[in-house]
């Protein structure tokens, strides 16, 4: 009978094994077993019991192992050693360390900027003390023909009032309306301000600080305004403005409060607040006013302050109840509501009609993804080079293991090394991030204002970030090295399984190059599309035309001043500037009363079409400009409009009368001319029927001056002087048509910049990785090269042998990248664009050629150097 079968229960043995010191265990356990056998002669259960009691009794100070924690303490001492070996290894392999560090630094600089940016975004609206109980009512609107409901940050005054009057479950209802824009004056001082309307609950709900005035009544009465400090200073200097009266044209406003400036990290920005009752007085009294209607959800905002202990469900139920009741009254559209906590506003959902600029999570996620891709790519460099070079360090691992290092300790050692490299990289990255910050801020600033100030807390984030990078980069090589068996590592390093990781390395390199090629192709396409947009034939002339924003001034008065300048050779007037993104539309009918169609419109004077050189197919310009209250009689339409209503040939259309449908009532208009089709909207959109109305002074927004001058700057100064004779309040705003078009396609430029920058990062990281691998390969194969050379291989042949592996990988990368990028651009980025460049061989091959050039240069340099070495030198020192 073997001892195992008759021995004590295994679990009792386990207990002893668990606590007993290794050096005492064998003897002690032996003793216990001997006793057990002795006791077994009497009875098994008795033996078991005694054995168990003994097991417990032997749990003594001298038998018990030191707990793991204490063993770990030595680990901290080991850190000193890890640090030393790491620094030595870094210093010994200067080239590889530099490649690793710079690669990581480049990508981490972007990471640093992202951390700064996101941590800034996350501070939005956190100065409101009640932010956890402030909710915003969002609306969804689904028209009868829409397939999806659109989401809006705005909602109706109706729902705000309804909640306030008929429902409970909240403490306050704040109703706001955007766009309080006035030129307000105090005596001689006139300034242009932008702000919102708000009900008296404003200061109860939000924590904006009121310096002077009564917070509960400041926004109660009609025509009361609250100024921010900045605004008040401009109008009143240091005087207390409360109680003063300011004017805006015929209107008079009482200043009832003075508040601190709005913090940058507030989702709503304003310079002035007007009482909501002002808006009610203005809009609700208009004829046919939609101010209080159910469907007027486009400009108003409702904020709710809930009690401390709140439950949004009952409130949502109330909102649904109202929606259900009101939606039943019409089948043309449906409006529904959602609640959103203040903390979710910024960064938040992708909503229409936001009260201020907003950044959506979608955008942040996209930025994070791109950053992560670049960072991971840089981490691959580290992983790759470390795996490749781990062969050299296997001896070190072997010795460590024999001396007694555990697997975890070896793992930690190499992770530590990666983290140290990543710390060095962090320092460099911080420097780089300072360099690229201004451009980064510029690209991001088209949404919310971005400060990107450094804060001390960021140091903590950065350190955590670089530790994370170190762990990610060092994980795989550390794992591989720590798995090494001590004996095999020391006995014959060349037979290690390490070499089997070659495939992993190849995959990583291919990934990096795919990325680089894709980014270059992306940059090329964006740039070509931008150029294409600028050179696109719009169908009319925009050259040398300077558009002056009228800012509400009388066009005749301004013209009389400006035409005095000899450089102004011709002029026209229009309501808006076409082809730059704005579109105005109206509904038209011809003979069939049921057939109406929408067309783009613009209000122009009789010079406009001549000045802009439109092609007339039939008829001519407006015979005269409207004077005073004169009714418009003529319109000029384009070819598409004629085709839409089947008016026959262009010539047939002249003299036909069409009906313009407006809320005020229909009006009949006669076609005076037909022009060829042209690009009214931006080039992403298809051409649509277009109509030009006779404009009047009420409708004009711009002067279009034809300018002939050699000295733009002095001309602009003269023009500004002319402006100032007429208007001293508004700034002079004028822009050449072509510049305006260029600006409207800035999206492509930003895209180009982002892709270009990413491409730059990806390329530098990838080529550095490639350089590292090339150096390593030639270094390890130098003997082979020497032998081949001695045997008579030519240098050319050697370069071929050494570089074919890399070239093969580049080719694979190219074949992955080209179709992917092509698909991405044609079906995602520019899928909806009506006019876009054909993505052809040039765009796709640009990246491939560039990367091939760089890659071959990198590899070629190293392999050529290796091939040129004197074989005798290499073979001698064995």
């Amino acid at each position, binding site marked *: 009978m073997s*001892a195992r079968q008759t021995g004590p229960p295994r679990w009792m043995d386990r207990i002893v094994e668990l606590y007993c010191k290794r050096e005492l265990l*064998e*003897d*002690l356990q032996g003793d*216990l077993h001997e006793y057990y056998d002795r006791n077994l002669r009497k009875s098994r259960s008795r033996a078991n019991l005694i054995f168990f009691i003994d097991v417990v*009794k032997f749990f*003594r100070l*001298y038998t018990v192992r030191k707990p793991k924690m204490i063993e770990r303490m030595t680990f901290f001492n080991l850190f000193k050693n890890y640090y030393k070996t790491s620094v030595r290894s870094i210093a010994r392999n200067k080239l590889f360390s530099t490649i690793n560090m710079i690669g990581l630094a480049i990508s981490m600089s972007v990471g640093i900027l992202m951390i700064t940016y996101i941590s800034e975004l996350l501070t939005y609206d956190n100065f409101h003390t009640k932010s956890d109980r402030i909710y915003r009512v969002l609306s969804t609107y689904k028209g009868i023909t829409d397939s999806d409901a659109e989401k809006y940050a705005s909602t109706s005054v109706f729902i705000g009032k309804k909640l306030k009057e008929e429902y409970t479950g909240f403490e306050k209802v704040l109703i706001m309306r955007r766009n309080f824009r006035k030129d307000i004056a105090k005596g001689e001082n006139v300034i242009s301000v932008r702000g919102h309307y708000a009900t008296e609950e404003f200061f109860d709900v939000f924590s904006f600080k009121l310096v002077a005035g009564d917070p509960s009544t400041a926004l109660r009465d009609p025509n009361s305004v609250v100024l921010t400090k900045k605004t008040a200073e401009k109008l009143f200097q240091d005087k207390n403005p409360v109680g003063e009266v300011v004017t805006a044209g015929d209107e008079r406003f009482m200043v009832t409060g003075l508040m601190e400036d709005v913090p940058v990290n507030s989702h709503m920005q304003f310079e002035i607040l007007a009482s909501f009752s002002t808006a009610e007085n203005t809009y609700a009294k208009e004829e046919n006013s939609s101010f209080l209607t159910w469907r007027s959800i486009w400009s108003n905002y409702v904020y709710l302050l809930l009690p401390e202990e709140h439950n949004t469900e009952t409130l949502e139920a109330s909102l649904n109840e109202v929606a259900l009741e009101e939606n039943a009254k019409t089948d043309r559209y449906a409006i529904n509501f959602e609640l959103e906590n203040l903390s979710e506003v910024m960064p938040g959902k992708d909503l229409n009609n936001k009260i201020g600029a907003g950044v959506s999570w979608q955008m942040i996620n996209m930025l994070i993804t791109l950053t992560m891709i670049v960072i991971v790519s840089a981490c691959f460099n580290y992983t790759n080079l470390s795996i490749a070079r781990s062969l050299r360090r296997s001896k070190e691992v072997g010795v460590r293991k024999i001396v007694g290092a555990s697997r975890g300790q070896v793992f930690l050692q190499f992770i530590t090394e990666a983290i140290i490299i990543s710390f060095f990289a962090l320092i460099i990255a911080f420097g780089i991030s300072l360099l690229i910050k201004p451009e980064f801020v510029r690209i991001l600033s088209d949404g919310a204002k971005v400060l990107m100030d450094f804060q001390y807390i960021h140091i903590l984030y950065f350190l955590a970030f670089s530790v994370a990078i170190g762990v990610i980069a060092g994980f795989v090589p550390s794992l591989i090295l720590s798995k090494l068996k001590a004996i095999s590592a020391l006995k014959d390093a060349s037979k290690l399984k390490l070499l089997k990781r070659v495939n992993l390395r190849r995959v990583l390199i291919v990934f990096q190059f795919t990325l680089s090629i894709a980014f270059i192709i992306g940059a090329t396409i964006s740039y070509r599309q931008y150029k294409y947009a600028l050179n696109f034939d719009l169908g009319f002339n925009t050259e040398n035309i300077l558009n002056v924003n009228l800012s509400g001034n009388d066009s005749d008065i301004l013209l009389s001043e400006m035409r005095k300048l000899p450089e102004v050779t011709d002029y026209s007037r229009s309501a808006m500037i076409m082809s730059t993104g704005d579109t105005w539309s109206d509904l038209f009918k011809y003979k069939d009363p049921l057939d109406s169609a929408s067309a783009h419109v613009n209000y122009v004077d009789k010079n406009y079409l001549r000045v802009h050189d439109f092609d007339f197919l039939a008829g001519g310009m407006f015979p005269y400009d409207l004077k005073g209250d004169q009714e418009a009689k003529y319109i000029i339409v384009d070819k598409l409009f004629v085709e839409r209503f089947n008016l026959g040939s262009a010539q047939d259309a002249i003299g036909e009368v069409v009906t313009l449908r407006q809320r005020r009532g229909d009006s009949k208009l006669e076609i005076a001319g037909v022009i060829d089709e042209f690009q009214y909207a931006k080039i992403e959109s298809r051409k649509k029927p277009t109509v030009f109305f006779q404009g009047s002074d009420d409708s004009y927004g711009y002067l279009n001056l034809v300018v002939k001058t050699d000295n733009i700057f002095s001309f602009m100064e003269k023009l500004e002087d002319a402006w100032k004779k007429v208007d001293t309040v508004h700034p002079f705003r004028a822009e050449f048509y072509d510049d305006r078009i260029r600006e409207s396609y800035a999206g492509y430029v930003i895209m180009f910049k982002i892709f270009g920058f990413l491409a730059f990062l990806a390329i530098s990281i990838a080529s550095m990785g490639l350089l590292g691998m090339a150096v390593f390969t030639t270094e390890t194969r130098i003997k082979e090269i020497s032998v081949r050379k001695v045997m008579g291989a030519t240098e050319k042949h050697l370069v071929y042998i050494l570089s074919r592996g890399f070239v093969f990988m580049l080719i694979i990368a190219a074949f992955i990248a080209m179709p992917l990028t092509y698909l991405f651009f044609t079906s995602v980025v520019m899928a909806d664009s009506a006019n876009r460049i054909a993505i052809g061989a040039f765009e796709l091959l640009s990246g491939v050629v560039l990367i091939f050039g760089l890659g071959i240069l990198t590899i070629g340099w190293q392999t050529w150097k290796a091939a040129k070495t004197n074989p005798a030198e290499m073979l001698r020192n064995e």
Partner: protein
Amino acid sequence: MKGTNLGEFEEVVLLTIASLMDEAYSVNIVDEISKVTGRKTKLGVVHAVLKRMEDKGLITSELGEPTKERGGRRKRFFQVSHGGKIALLKSKEQRDKLWNLIPDVVFQGVR
């Protein structure tokens, strides 16, 4: 002074080890003590004493060859070290001196 002199039980164990010669391992020691002195000793106590005396340098130990009876586990055999022998002799000397000082009259009737 504590440490320089042997404790009573220490002395017993030490003497037992010396008497057992090459067969002195824990279980045997326990058995021998109970056989010779009639004292019921527990393995745990002996174990602790052995450990303590080894730390003091009174005994040395080495592992023997594995045997079948303990599931293949080796025994730890103890030997009295030079220091242990001196301590034993010293202890005996002290007692002898004391014994010699006692007049026979004291034990009259007991023996």
